[in-house]
């Protein structure tokens, strides 16, 4: 019979291999799902994974990889810090929305003034918006011991209502003929997060994502604070013994992830999205949770996982157009990936052995 044996220590090989095996398993299971929906599985998988990178219109899709990947990476890096310490911020979607609202609001407050300092002010306002939204669960957890998972998630629904409210009210475009939504920031130069190099998809959000990856890497591997974050996640009591102040860690991790999610929202609203509207958010805050785990909560892993997840978004859209694959199928596909990853993670810490005994 098959038994699980705990390894004396985590396997390094498997810790690197599981994400790859999980992607492979997801392709197989996803292919089966697509076949069930009456699509050619090989065609569907290749459309998702091959077409955006090497297909006919790759010149258009490749930059999209950065555009879609940047917010995912930025949010996931923030989340991973907390996840490592056992602090579960799952309301990044809400912090993303609040970042966008505050950032865009700060910019629109100056309209139609043109000045170099407007965009930096928006960046700060965006980060601040996400930070404040995340500080609510952080403060409640520190002060009252309230569960941060539930509070941060409830605040997503509140943020969505806020978004609806400002799209219809405060930030509504006065020249928008009564349609909901703000002015388009793409046509307001001082507030526009434009492409830095034309045709590459590179905008300030992408730069911020790369900076965040490097920052997180240094923090986790070279700095006492990062060591304390890891220690708290591995063994909370040992962390207290080492001198970690849990409250400060909670405030830092939640605040940081909120600020990064807020930044992601600001760069999105001032760049690719262009305006605040009711359907501005598309679930990056939730997909980023998958990205964080797929990247094994490691900064470099998250960078790669973010790009991979962006690929499934873009490829999914292509498959939607060319094969009629439902958008929800891609969502299921992404969900599957997280499942396989968590299940296969077992191989990192356990060895599967076959034994000859009858009953355990």
């Amino acid at each position, binding site marked *: 019979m098959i038994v699980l*044996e705990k390894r*004396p*220590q*985590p396997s390094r090989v498997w810790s690197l291999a599981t994400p790859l095996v999980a992607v492979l398993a997801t392709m197989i299971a996803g292919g089966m799902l697509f076949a069930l929906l009456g699509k050619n599985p090989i065609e569907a998988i290749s459309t998702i994974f091959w077409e955006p990178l090497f297909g006919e219109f790759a010149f258009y899709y490749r930059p999209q990889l950065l555009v879609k990947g940047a917010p995912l990476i930025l949010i996931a890096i923030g989340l991973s810090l907390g996840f490592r310490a056992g602090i579960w911020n799952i309301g990044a979607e809400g912090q993303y929305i609040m970042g966008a609202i505050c950032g865009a609001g700060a910019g629109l407050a100056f309209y139609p003034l043109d000045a170099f300092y407007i965009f930096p002010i928006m960046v700060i306002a965006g980060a601040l918006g996400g930070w404040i939204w995340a500080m609510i669960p952080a403060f409640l957890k520190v002060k009252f011991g309230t569960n941060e998972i539930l509070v941060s998630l409830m605040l997503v629904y509140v943020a969505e209502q806020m978004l609806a409210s400002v799209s219809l009210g405060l930030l509504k475009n006065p020249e928008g003929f009564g349609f909901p939504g703000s002015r388009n920031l793409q046509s307001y130069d001082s507030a526009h997060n434009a492409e830095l190099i034309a045709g590459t998809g590179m905008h300030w959000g992408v730069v911020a994502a790369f900076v965040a990856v490097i920052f997180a890497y240094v923090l986790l591997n*070279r*700095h*006492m*604070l990062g*060591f304390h974050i*890891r*220690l708290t996640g*591995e*063994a909370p*009591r*040992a*962390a*207290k*013994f*080492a*001198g970690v*102040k849990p409250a400060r860690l909670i405030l830092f991790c939640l605040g940081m992830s909120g600020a990064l999610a807020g930044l992601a929202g600001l760069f999105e609203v001032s760049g690719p999205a262009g305006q605040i509207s009711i359907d501005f958010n598309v679930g990056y805050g939730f997909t980023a949770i998958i990205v964080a785990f797929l990247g094994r909560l490691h900064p470099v892993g998250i960078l790669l996982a973010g790009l991979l997840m962006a690929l499934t978004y873009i490829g999914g859209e292509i498959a939607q157009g060319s094969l009629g694959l439902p958008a929800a199928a891609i969502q299921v596909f992404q969900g599957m990936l997280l499942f396989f990853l968590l299940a296969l993670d077992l191989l990192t810490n356990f*060895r599967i*052995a076959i034994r000859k*005994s*009858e*009953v*355990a």
Partner: protein
Amino acid sequence: MTNQSSGPLLSLKGLTKAYPGVVANDTVSFDIGEGEVHALLGENGAGKSTLVKMIYGLVKPDSGVMELRGTPYAPAEPRQARADGIAMVFQHFSLFDALNVAENIALGMENPPAMRDLAARIREVSETYGLPLDPYRTVGDLSAGERQRVEIIRCLLQDPKLLIMDEPTSVLTPQEVEILFQTLQKLRSEGTSILYISHKLEEIRTLCDHATILRLGKNVGECVPSETSARDMAEMMVGSALQTPERSGREFGDVAMDISGLSVPSPSAFGTALKNVHMTVRKGEILGIGGVAGNGQDELLGVLSGETLTEADAVKLHGQPIGKIGPTDRRAMGVLAAPEERLGHAAAPEMSLTENAMLTGSVRENLEKNGFLNWGAAQGFAEKIIEAFDVRTPGPENAARSLSGGNLQKFVIGREVLQNPDVLVVNQPTWGVDAAAAAAIRQSLLDLAAKGCAVICISQDLDELMEIADSFAALNEGRLSAPRPTQGLTVDEIGLMMGGAHGMEVAHV
């Protein structure tokens, strides 16, 4: 009662059980007679636990057979073992804090009667055996001795043929041990066999009719304890002659650590609050703190290490109030600590030894600068600990949990000792460690004291405290008795300092 001469109650024949990398039991055979108290003697890691788990149906032997009164006995699960009349009192892990006594006992029975009837029976049986117990009290609020009573009564209600007891006296005061022994003798006189697991030789000599000695998973000999000297049994158990630590005459210096009027609530739900604790330790002195588990040991260590903050004046170092100073700054001042729980408190299980060296060594060993970590230096420090304390591991990159309990303990103690503390606090420094390693750890504490360090050694092993401590105090329900010089203390006096019999009464034999 009945002393059937027909044959043994339980006989084990060639039991073998292997785990990856270790043979826990290697063809172990012996018999347990009817109405006999049989000792199973061995060091930590000798395979005693695995053996009894096989008897109790928790673990399946790889090979070998058991016979119960001549018929084959192979319990697939504890339920079956219980049905066959085998009961077990565990050392750890078998009570539910949030449930009451009656519920806990019902869980250990096959067909428990209705709660009201059960409660009445618990009262009845507990009085008969001199172990009074209120069936409706929540178990989390009971003392360690009372919790053991719950386990014993749970077993007795099933009229067992064989009662297995795993290190039962480690949680009792000497007076409570006496009462337990009377209960066990009463059971024996009623015909119940007892398998008594321990590494305490004097106890076994007092109580047991027969002893089987395990070493490294093998049966290395049997003896009649009352006719064998403790020293001979120890040598069979350890396999070599033992060395007693050297204790050179020391001069005590000024008071290093001064605790006065310390009262703090426990940080955990079923913990013990410390109540008005006073003590002083001088430079070069080893203060031993005894007491039954769960009487405030963890809480006291937390207060000394800085994990639990108190009134500033309650804890003084060289006259300076440090009650409000956290662990990191206390380390910088020379106050170091080694908690009892190795995995998860003293060390992070999944992290490497290098990272665990960083855990407490960062300040005093200069492993960080402005918050940035010097991993090279940390690795060097880890290697130094491994070298100096003979920690058996392939290298500092290995995870803490991959080490055996004894090796990790050496690492944890070594990590603090090598940082040259002014005050060192240790809790259960040799718990679960084999004799040779325990001797080495005790020696290192003595050496440290000889260099002028003030050592506070919290331990439940009274022999250990008598061996190394200069003065002795005991914790009882969060209160600390006044420290007294170790020399000349009698077992009775120690027992009374630990709280005497905690309201137990002698069995009405």
